[in-house]
């Protein structure tokens, strides 16, 4: 063969392998992205979210995919940090050309990735972000399949009033974490007042920072206030340490909080110190409805091979949120008749966005669609710690 012919065939071959796979692959799958942390401070919760989302993808593909086309989920680690998450969203949207993204995790991270998603024009469905106002500030592509803390706080306040009817409530607030701070300084004061409960240190709550190594000063100060009950704007691990130190210093008052308290295995790790603590959440593995039971079974099976470990063995509400989010995107694909592939991607992404904006109801395990500002609609369940577990308060 002459040299020119060889060169010609080489160029043809290169063109085929560079261009054709893009066309072939684009026909093969519906492509969605998953952007949650598997490194950094949110790694354990993020790994559970990966498992939850993958359970949904496996179920859908086991039933033949969407109209016979496989659903493909591409993962990018958000690293628990805004900077890493922004890079991950850019990669998923730009390089991987996904239709929509499940994630991120954390309000602080969402506040960075949501504006980017708006500029690119791609829906992101956060699976953990309950600071009020984050989706509202980032219309129209930002959605959060979570319940904002104010709604959970109302249910918790009612339960606390019924159980203890405290005359004086003191608040302890994490001033570093976005969600915990909002709960302690904005959510609880208003909600408790509406329930007719008095907050004795609203203007000057007892404060600490996320991950503080010790709370002796804070508890000494709290004890001096002599409250009847203590409200926590805190994440689970910090709440556990706060309550433990309070018991060490002789305090017997009940503690309460919202969804972040349920992280961190407080019932198992807290012993007698945490009995009677009240918190609210949108889902718990104690729920006995058929879909929750089925999800738990599928989750536990997959968790043995995908990110196995003691921190991912059991599901909490995070993987439920990611599971439902995948099904929401699939619902959008089906309803809008979105064809697989990456052609007309911008139009397809807008179609997904329009579907989400109109999703005022949804039959998820723990998801009921979105409100007008893109925040999730869900039921609230209130729990109390008893017998080393969070028990549902009927």
């Amino acid at each position, binding site marked *: 063969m002459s040299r020119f012919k060889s060169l010609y065939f080489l160029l043809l071959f290169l063109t085929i392998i560079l261009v054709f796979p893009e066309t072939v692959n684009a026909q093969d799958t519906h492509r969605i992205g998953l952007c949650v942390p598997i490194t950094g401070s949110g*790694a354990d919760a993020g790994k559970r979210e990966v498992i939850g989302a993958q359970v949904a993808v496996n179920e859908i593909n086991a039933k033949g995919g969407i109209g016979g086309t496989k659903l493909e989920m591409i993962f990018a680690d958000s690293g628990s940090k805004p900077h890493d998450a922004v890079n991950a969203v850019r990669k998923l949207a730009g390089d991987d050309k996904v239709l929509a993204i499940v994630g991120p995790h954390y309000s602080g991270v969402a506040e960075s990735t949501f504006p980017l998603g708006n500029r690119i024009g791609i829906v992101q469905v956060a699976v953990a972000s309950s600071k009020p106002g984050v989706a509202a500030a980032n219309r129209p592509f930002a959605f959060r399949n979570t319940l904002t803390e104010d709604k959970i706080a109302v249910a918790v306040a009612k339960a606390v009033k019924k159980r203890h009817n405290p005359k004086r409530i003191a608040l302890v607030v994490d001033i570093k974490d976005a969600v915990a701070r909002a709960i302690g300084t904005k959510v609880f004061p208003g909600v408790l007042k509406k329930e007719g409960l008095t907050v004795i240190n609203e203007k000057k709550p007892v*404060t600490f920072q996320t991950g*503080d190594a*010790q709370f*002796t*000063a804070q508890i*000494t100060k709290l004890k001096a206030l002599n409250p009847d009950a203590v409200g926590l704007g805190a994440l689970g691990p910090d709440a556990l340490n706060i309550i433990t130190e309070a018991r060490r210093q002789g305090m017997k008052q009940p503690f309460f909080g919202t969804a972040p308290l349920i992280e961190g295995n407080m019932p198992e*790790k807290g012993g007698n110190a945490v009995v009677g603590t009240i918190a609210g959440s949108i889902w718990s593995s104690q729920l006995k409805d058929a879909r929750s039971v089925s999800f738990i079974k599928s989750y536990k099976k997959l968790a043995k091979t995908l990110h196995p470990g003691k*921190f991912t063995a059991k599901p909490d509400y995070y993987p439920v949120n990611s599971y439902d989010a995948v099904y929401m995107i699939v619902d959008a694909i089906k309803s809008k008749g979105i064809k697989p592939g990456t052609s007309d991607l911008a139009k397809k992404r807008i179609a997904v966005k329009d579907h989400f904006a109109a999703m005022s109801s949804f039959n998820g395990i723990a998801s009921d669609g979105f409100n007008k500002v893109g925040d999730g609609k869900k039921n609230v369940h209130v729990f109390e710690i008893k017998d080393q577990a969070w028990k549902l308060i009927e």
Partner: protein
Amino acid sequence: MLAQQLANGLLLGSTYALIALGLTLVLGVFDKLNIAHGDVFMFGAFAGVAAASFGAPLILAVIAGLVTSAAINVLVERSCFYPLRNAHFLAPMLSTIAFGILLQNVATQIWGSDPSRYPNIEAVSQYEVGGILLSSIHVIILVISFSVMLSVDIVIYRTKLGRALRATAIDPEVAGLLGVNTKNVVLVTFLVAGALAGIAGVLTAVVYSQITPLIGIRLGLIGMVAMVIGGLGNLRGAMIGGILIGLVQVLNDAYLDASYRDLIVFSLFFGFIVLKPAGLFPQPSGNRS
């Protein structure tokens, strides 16, 4: 409340003092900073928690933490300081940053990113002395911390080993000529510094309950601040600096707001660096430890 808060500050400051002491030992002998010291502390904490979760009593958990951190610190010396002993003076310190990040990631892989807790110590009694409430755990922590500090002080200033260490810190070449085995001195320095970090780590895990693979970053930084305030290279200064930082933090949380804590501590740090870089207890010139 003030007396109680001062007691709280002493408790917190005593663990900071142990961290600062370890940093100062290495700085004093080598004139170099081990930035991975906080992560060595973290690993010791996790080793203690792991031992306790298998049922080990407190003393064995402390030993587990001490041994683990001492071993890791020797590894730091072998991999970050020894190979780069003739390189630019910044090279070993930069290397310890990378080593520290490695330790954080290894710890995350082993123990996860969720906080780990020291298993509950159930039999906790309360003691009240002059209106100050202390649990038996707090008393044990204070006794261990101050005993260790006193022991280090005695060894450094009243034993042959301490003299060898101080001689190496002043001038390693001359110390060698005078018969000091400087290689052994280096090994002992890193072993002891690591052991101090490990003890501090386990005590932190016992009293303050929450440890994560990232805890060393912050506490290592606090240790450096304590070291600067106390006087760079001064062991007694490091102990006092640590206790002072503990008191400042606790009094801030008690009477001001947690949001001011870092502002005050790092303003103090900056103030000392600019206005009194030798710290509260400056070393005489030419004498690093």
